[in-house]
């Protein structure tokens, strides 16, 4: 016990260095931080909605919060209620059962808000396309501002997508009129 305590005090945590795409991540993250600070003034609050995903996208989204990516340092925060969210991150081919929940979540999110569909399923062409149990793309249910493709997209992809959304054409408030 004592040895472990001292070891933890005096040595760095045993993690691997970020190698692949580390530079891209840092660049995208720094830009994102600047964009968020400029456009929102505070941090970006994201509510993740699983609309019938296979959970691969969730694994990647979850990875954003781990020690490798640590997106909170860029001013991005995952929140527990759509009432607190600026952005909905929707995954999965919207299943019939999740359709109403998605609509309700969208309705519960205060405007102005963004919707980002994540993964090939959310974009409408995943392996579940045209299934009898699915509605299809997220955009068939609620208005979508951006689709981040990939099966699943990597965390870096996600960050770059968000950077695209915030700095690119999509001004905050596209979804305002749908409220």
């Amino acid at each position, binding site marked *: 016990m004592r040895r472990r305590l001292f070891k933890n005090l005096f040595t760095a945590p045993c993690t691997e260095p970020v190698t692949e795409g580390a530079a891209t991540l840092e660049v995208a993250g720094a830009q994102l931080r600047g964009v968020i600070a400029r456009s929102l003034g505070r941090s970006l609050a994201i509510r993740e*909605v699983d609309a019938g995903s296979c959970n691969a996208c969730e694994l990647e989204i979850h990875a954003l919060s781990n020690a490798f990516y640590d997106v909170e340092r860029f001013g991005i925060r995952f929140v527990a*209620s*759509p*009432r607190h969210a600026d952005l909905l991150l929707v995954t999965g081919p919207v299943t019939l059962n999740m359709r*109403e*929940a*998605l609509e*309700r*979540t969208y*309705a*519960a999110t*205060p*405007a102005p808000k963004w919707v980002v569909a994540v993964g090939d399923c959310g974009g409408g062409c995943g392996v579940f396309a045209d299934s009898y149990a699915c509605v299809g793309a997220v955009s068939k249910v609620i208005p979508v501002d951006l689709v981040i493709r990939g099966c699943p997209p990597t965390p870096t992809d996600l960050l770059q997508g968000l950077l695209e959304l915030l700095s690119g054409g999509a001004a905050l408030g596209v979804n305002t009129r749908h*409220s």
Partner: protein
Amino acid sequence: MSVYSSLSACLGLIALWGLIGLVGLLRPMSVGFVGRTLFPLGALCGAALAVVAAVSLASPPEQLTLAVGLPDLPMHVRRDALTSLFLFLLGAASAGISVFAAGYFRRGHGTAPGLLCLQYHMFLASMGFVLLANDAYAFMVAWETMALSSYFLVTTQHGLAEIRRAGFLYLLIAHVGAIAILLSFGVMQGGSWQFTFDAMRGAHLAPQWAATAFLLALFGFGAKAGLVPLHVWLPEAHPAAPSPVSALMSGVMLKTAVYGMLRVTFDLLGHAQWWWGLVPLTFGLFSALYGVVFAAAQTDMKRLLAYSSIENMGIIFTGLGLAIVFLGVGMPSLGALALIALLYHSLNHAFMKSLLFLGTGAVLHSTGERNLGRLGGLIHRMPWVAWLTLIGALAMAGLPPLNGFVSEWLLLQAFLFSNEVPRPFINMLLPLGAALVALAAALAAYVMVKFYGVIFLGQPREASLNRAQDAGVLERIGLIWLALSCFALGLLPTYVIGALRSVVEQLSGAELPSAHAPWWLLVPLPERRASYSPLVFFLAIAAVVVVTMFAVRLFYHRRVRRAPPWDCGFGGLNSRMQDSAEGFGQPIRHIFGPFFAMKRELPSPFDHAPRYRVTAGDRIWLALYLPLGTLVRRVADTVMWLQQGRISTYLLYSFVTLVVLLALVV
């Protein structure tokens, strides 16, 4: 002196109450006559009594010998400051309750309205006479009339076995208490065989006999007040009685016990030893905690209020104990403070508990439901009752601008100086009482959140609640009267304490230090620098609310959107998903587990129709009353063989008795 005397005015008004009751018998079946005419008259009578009593608070005592009673045993009556205060309480609270009752009693079930009117007004009149009585005989007659008339009122719906059972339990404990009071008077006459209170004031008792009289009185009046462990009748009788009667019993009748205790301790016995105070203090603190913990576990709204009454009586008796200790060790200003706190709390409790009981009455009337598990969302259907009850609930929770806070604050002030009592150990233990009082007050707020939230907020738990009607005009007037009284007592404490001054000076024999503070600032002990200004508090709260509303109107972006509550996307939020009375009380039931005799019925995972039940029983009932009942029954069974049912056996008994007596005499 002028022809007018406030004593005879009080007597006249009390007699008028009796008369109103008798008039009810003329047309016993007419709800219109009894309800719309007699009950409002009774309310006027109460209001007049309150005015007479309030005016006479500071005037010197007066007494009379009435020409009624047994031969050579006339009834004596007396009015002094203490009597006036409690007469005011009786008159003012009963005025509101009677107006409410005028709209409340309807035809259909139980006792006929005329008879009810007789019992009700007899109850009022006997309470008034208890306060005026100046000899043990008159006191006991009034006391027993009070117990009997309230027994009949409790058993209004005598068709139900459980109500008869509740009534019997009430009567039993009332009588056990009355015997103790009678014995106490017997001790206090001190060998003079004069049973007037004047004689008792003059009697010089040995310390051990004075202590005996005090303890007997504490037992007797404690039984009426519902002190633990004599509290068992309260949670049975209050739900059984019609709501105005519950209000009257809880709000006013319990206070007659406080009156009796004050009368015996400070007036009849005179020099109380300081250690006597520890007994009511201990029982009071225990009752306060016990009552509030049980209130948190209740699922019947009137039972909940009954346990809350036990808590409040506990707080009042705590104040009594503290006052005796302070006065006994020669700290008159602190003793006076404790007395003020206890008298103030008696007044407060009379109004706020009556208000709450009447609120439950209106709910019960409109929904037919007493179980918290089948109520909810009534604020939309019954806004008048809901908002007025809210005032009572806030007062009961002890929140600042209202009256409940003032008296608890005063009591805590008194407690905080109890470390200066010049007795070792006691001065270390007494401040702990402050912690218990604070705990009870905090839990009382918790109980009130549960009471109010489950009944009035959220969604209705039954479809039938959507047909609930708001209270009628008379009922509203009664509620408004009591709610305004709560406000007045809360906002103008300096005036109330000014009025209590003469009572406290009579009881403690000490001159109160005159306050130099402005009229809006309450400074109980000038040299201690603790002060409270409810009016400023109230204005500050009101100002903050108004300013916030204006700010939101002016500066907010005006894009307000009304959306359904967030339900995690599942939809179909229904009333069964709300916090229930059981669920809300669960943490308290868990934390204070040893207080309860808990029985749980848990379903197994394979049950087709799973049921969950939990009952929180009273350990004192199981450990004390049931064995006692069994013992009495066993003794009765043993003695029963004497009763053979044959006349020859009984003749033999008479003969044997005669022979034994003759042998003894000769």
